[in-house]
């Protein structure tokens, strides 16, 4: 039976005595796990890992931004911890870090590892407490934790104080989405955002930046009754093809009505 090398990110942090964001020093953490991070100019990928036995090199593109480098390194470390023995080399394109959050696959698992390591729940929750579910909050948290917008936005949806969803559209179509814990599974984002959403403007290229705006919920959400509700949308273009949208049910009536419907159905 293959020896398991996997150590969950929370345990790694605890073993290393890390309790503050400024102490999450990815180079030292990776070295503790047998992987040396080196910074080089990379042409074919944003990062790659080459490992053999108990040692590995994680190469990260020296020209990437620091938060991107940290996430890339965390992602490759995820491969090292999860996929060691199965494969020895991964070369990961930058786009994986933004797009591979949907279906379960090695890239998603590596992204998840990096998010849990660089944005650990026990540090992130207190920092995100009672903060608005917008990219302004995401930007400030990303600065505190030195992480990418995508990973930080996902963590805010998962661990923030208010009900929200994050949707990633690629070339105008939904690539992946994630619900916060208070969003019922009946709520599905539309395949393409409606014409009156901010994301629509970003996707069409008629705007480059949109402020957080209250929009009619049916621009985003499928159920027919959505047109009677509103939600706060904050969308940003993270590349020429990708638009990330945070949907915040600041007015929670839609969620409360859905809950009530569920109760009534249950009573019947």
């Amino acid at each position, binding site marked *: 039976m293959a020896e398991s090398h996997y150590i969950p990110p929370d345990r790694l942090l605890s073993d290393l*005595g890390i309790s503050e964001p400024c102490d999450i020093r990815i180079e030292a953490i990776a070295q503790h796990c047998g992987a*040396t991070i080196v910074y080089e100019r990379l042409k*074919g990928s944003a990062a790659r890992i080459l490992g053999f036995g108990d040692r590995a090199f994680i190469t990260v593109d020296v020209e990437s931004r620091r938060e991107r480098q940290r996430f890339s390194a965390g992602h490759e470390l995820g491969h090292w911890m999860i996929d060691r023995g199965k*494969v020895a080399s991964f*070369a990961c394109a930058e786009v994986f870090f933004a797009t591979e959050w949907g279906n379960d696959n090695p890239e998603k698992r590596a992204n998840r590892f990096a998010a849990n390591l660089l944005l650990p729940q026990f540090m992130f929750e207190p920092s995100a407490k009672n903060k608005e579910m917008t990219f302004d909050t995401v930007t400030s948290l990303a600065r505190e934790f030195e992480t990418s917008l995508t990973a930080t936005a996902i963590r805010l949806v998962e661990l923030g104080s208010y009900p929200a969803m994050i949707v990633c559209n690629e070339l105008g179509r939904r690539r992946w989405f994630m619900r916060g814990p208070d969003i019922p599974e009946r709520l599905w984002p539309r395949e393409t955002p409606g014409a009156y959403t901010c994301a629509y403007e970003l996707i069409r290229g008629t705007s480059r930046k949109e402020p957080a705006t209250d929009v009619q919920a049916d621009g985003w959400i499928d159920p027919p009754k959505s047109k009677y509700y509103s939600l706060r949308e904050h969308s940003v273009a993270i590349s020429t093809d990708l638009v990330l949208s945070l949907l915040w049910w600041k007015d929670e009536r839609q969620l409360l009505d859905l809950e009530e419907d569920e109760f009534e159905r249950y009573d019947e």
Partner: protein
Amino acid sequence: MTDKPRDYEQELADILNALAESTLEMSDEEIELEIREEGLDPQIVAEHVREILKNTVKSCQQRLLIEAEQEYEKRISAMKGADYSLPESPKAQRDLITSILASNPQLVRGLLTAQSRDFNSLPDEDLPAFVIQLMSLIEARDIIEEEGAPEE
């Protein structure tokens, strides 16, 4: 009389222990008075001591992190100082990778994936660092095989 040399370190440790003991035996008022007599503010001194204690606890908890950091610095310096003579042309570098793998079949067997064996997909610019890393992984393996794995 013996000619035993004086153990200055032990003597210093004894003095410090005695000082610590006497401080422990003092009342809060006596300590406060002594600090004021030195012309210092007890609040500021207390904050300073708290900070020292906090940092000491933190360094102790982060012992493994600090060790890993030192190890990382050591490896990076070693890599910078290492002299790997690489062939200049990308084709020769690819040939070198093929030959390294051919002479280390255990690398290929079950470890390197088709993805990574497809070195043609590696851009020329990414080859030198890849070759160096491959060589140093093999070197590390050879050292372990020769000397035996370090004890945990």
